[in-house]
């Protein structure tokens, strides 16, 4: 699962654009990784400001998981 540091996020949408399974929701000021995420890491790699990280690599993170698509 991907962890999100929402305070870092600039809401640019790059992660949404590269997600192959459309599993990122970008609300006005919040990112949510949806349940059907396949952990491909593309969003982690494209993020210009390192908002996203593999959950295990990041200790102090706020993990936002939404159950609705």
């Amino acid at each position, binding site marked *: 699962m991907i962890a999100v540091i929402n305070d870092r996020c600039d809401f640019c949408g790059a992660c949404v654009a*590269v997600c192959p399974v459309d599993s990122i929701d970008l609300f*006005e000021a919040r990112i949510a990784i949806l349940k059907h995420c396949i952990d491909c890491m593309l969003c982690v790699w494209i*993020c*210009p400001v390192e908002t996203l990280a593999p959950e295990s690599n990041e200790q102090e993170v706020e993990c936002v998981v939404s159950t609705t698509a």
Partner: protein
Amino acid sequence: MRRLYDCVVVGGGPGGAWAAKHVAESGATVLLLEKDREVGIPVRCAEAVGAAGLKAVVEPRSRWISNSIKGVVLVSPDGQEVVVESAEEQGYMLDRKIFDYELVQMAAAKGVEVLTKAYVHNVVKPDGQVQGVRFTHLGDSHEISAKIVIGADGVESRVGRWGGLRTNIKMRDMESCLQMTLTNINVDPNYIHFYFGKRVAPGGYLWVFPKNSNTANVGLGVSGEFSQHKAARRFLQEFVQKKFPSAAVMYTVAGGVPCAVTLKKIVADGLMLVGDAAHQVNPMSGGGITTAMLAGKIAGRVAGEAICSGDLSEIKLSEYPKEWHKLQGKTHERFHKIKQAVYKLTDEDLNKTAASILKMAPEQRTIGGVFRAALLKHPSLLLDLVKVFVN
């Protein structure tokens, strides 16, 4: 607000505004939905635009322009500066806050209704054909029917995905970008600078675009092929600390720029995509303001005709991608191939090329001349470029 519009446009950037304006000019009812609280803010752009490209889509107004650009400086990895000046390559630094705002005003003057803080969360698609949108506005949910939905919702376009269009992009064609607006620096306001090299911005470039002699947009794009090893913000922090140690950072903005060819399919029954959503950015420069406006103009006109005729089919709407391809899309395919060839060059190649160009007389240093010199120096690039023009 009505329950039914002829056309709903999602996204109030230049592409959406121009599409809305041109649909409304046909007499159709149009609703423009913008997710942010104000059109034009936040600015997610380096704000430079070519003069010719801008004039082709709108008569520039002086209050949109913060600075005029007289030339381009290309900086090689080892710091050689190649100055390119040419009358027809002049450009402007736009003030996007004012520019975007006034484009939407111009659309409103044609009768377009505008709603900000309107967050679209799905399309209405009862029998597989897009027939409207669902959105929330100030805590209320709304469903609006529309004969045609135009998705001008940016690089993260979800309107396209919901409508069944494939909007995926390859990582190497996505530029991971970060920009800071710096002040308390010294820059020549007449020139925009581009820095190249694997250590500055692999698979992309770094830009310094001056708004005046002490303020500039300084940013970079790193190809998604490389950004996994080092994020854009780390590249930018290093450059700014080294080059502009006294700078105050007035504004920081991130972005993803799709430097690809136009999506294969940008229309479906009752649905059209415009701008970044359709990957209509110039893949070499990453510039997408005027290309989105050109696309918006074509899409808007075709949508207007479709609404008048009652034929909302993909076949009818396909007049838009056909004309886009003829006017710009084909050029982007060529630029995309050149981009791929150029990014194969090593830093050493770029340094040698810069050295050979600097031996040319300044008046020969047009963008075309620079490319010719690069080709002579690099036969392998020449082969790639031959493929560009043969394919």
